[in-house]
């Protein structure tokens, strides 16, 4: 299948996940497990995405300037920097480390 087909399928699938919430009877989602799964699933998915985007490489894992970006972003978050600043710090760190020829 072409990339276009996958893109449109993904768009439809995501829209359905959004719409589904407005369509299900509210009583179905009263179960406490639902909220708990949703919260924990989000944590696990985001942690996995942080890891994947930091270490992805041609041969499985790659260790480069993105690790410095991760650490700098964590430091910015500990200093309670706003989201926008955190993203800029991540970009600037990766770019800076590469400019120095390290990563």
């Amino acid at each position: 299948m072409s990339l276009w087909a996958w893109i449109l399928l993904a768009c439809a699938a995501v829209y359905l996940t959004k719409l589904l919430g407005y369509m299900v009877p509210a009583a179905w989602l009263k179960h406490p497990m639902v909220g708990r799964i949703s919260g924990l699933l989000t944590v696990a998915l985001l942690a996995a995405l942080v890891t994947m985007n930091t270490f992805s490489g041609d041969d499985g894992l790659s260790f480069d300037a993105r690790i410095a970006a991760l650490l700098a972003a964590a430091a910015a978050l500990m200093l309670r920097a706003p989201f926008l600043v955190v993203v800029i710090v991540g970009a600037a760190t990766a770019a800076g480390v590469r400019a120095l020829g390290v990563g």
Partner: protein
Amino acid sequence: MPRSLPALTPATRMGLSIAAALTLYGVSFGALATASGFTFWQTVALSALLFSGGSQFAIIGVVASGGSGGAALGASTLLSARNTIYGVQMKTLLNPTGWRRYVAAQVTIDESAANAMVQTDHAESRRGFWVTGIASYIGWNAATVFGAALGDVIGDPQSLGLDGAVVAAFLGLLWPRLRSREPWALAVLAALITMLTMPVLPPGVPVMVAAGAAVVWTVLTRRRGGDLAPAEDEVDPGHDADPGHGAGGGSGRDGGAGR
């Protein structure tokens, strides 16, 4: 003057600042998508039709690292699963009907749901959801077009550190959810699972394995009650421009109801 130009309400101001914050992220999405091999129109279509930041980055991340279209579809759909929960909460809070329901679904994201849920007044909830959702949609899409068009001009996204920006953005989304021991433990476990499986599984699939681990975790810890759920009740108004707030605050309502 004050009558003809009413002051913006807190929910509206919050929504506009969230949308402004999202816009830079949208530029990096546009630039990164085209740099990852997506065409200009494919990039624009992802923002206009899919409109869910995490899922969009997951798609380009999986494809850029050599993953299949199926893996990209799976990762983006799984990542959007929490939007279903937001939809239910928005239905409870705002109950949009007719065509508004279909528009509401499209602009249901972490940020719009969060801004609706943190308001105590019904009218503010409604403004919070719609202002955040629509302003974010406009800003995100304009920024995507800008980034995708600029992507070719600005050259190597790595020299600009855009891959570092993505790492920082996902950490920024995760961070507000790490407020107690359980989400920390699960995040570390998910990161370890991802690192260990990345060399042996197709790109993108480790994310789904980590998601599976979260479900197993939920079932195994079920009997321990909800006290270890993410500290979603601690909504910090000082971080109103923080898109990561959404799911934390959202799951709080559900988790709290069961306690």
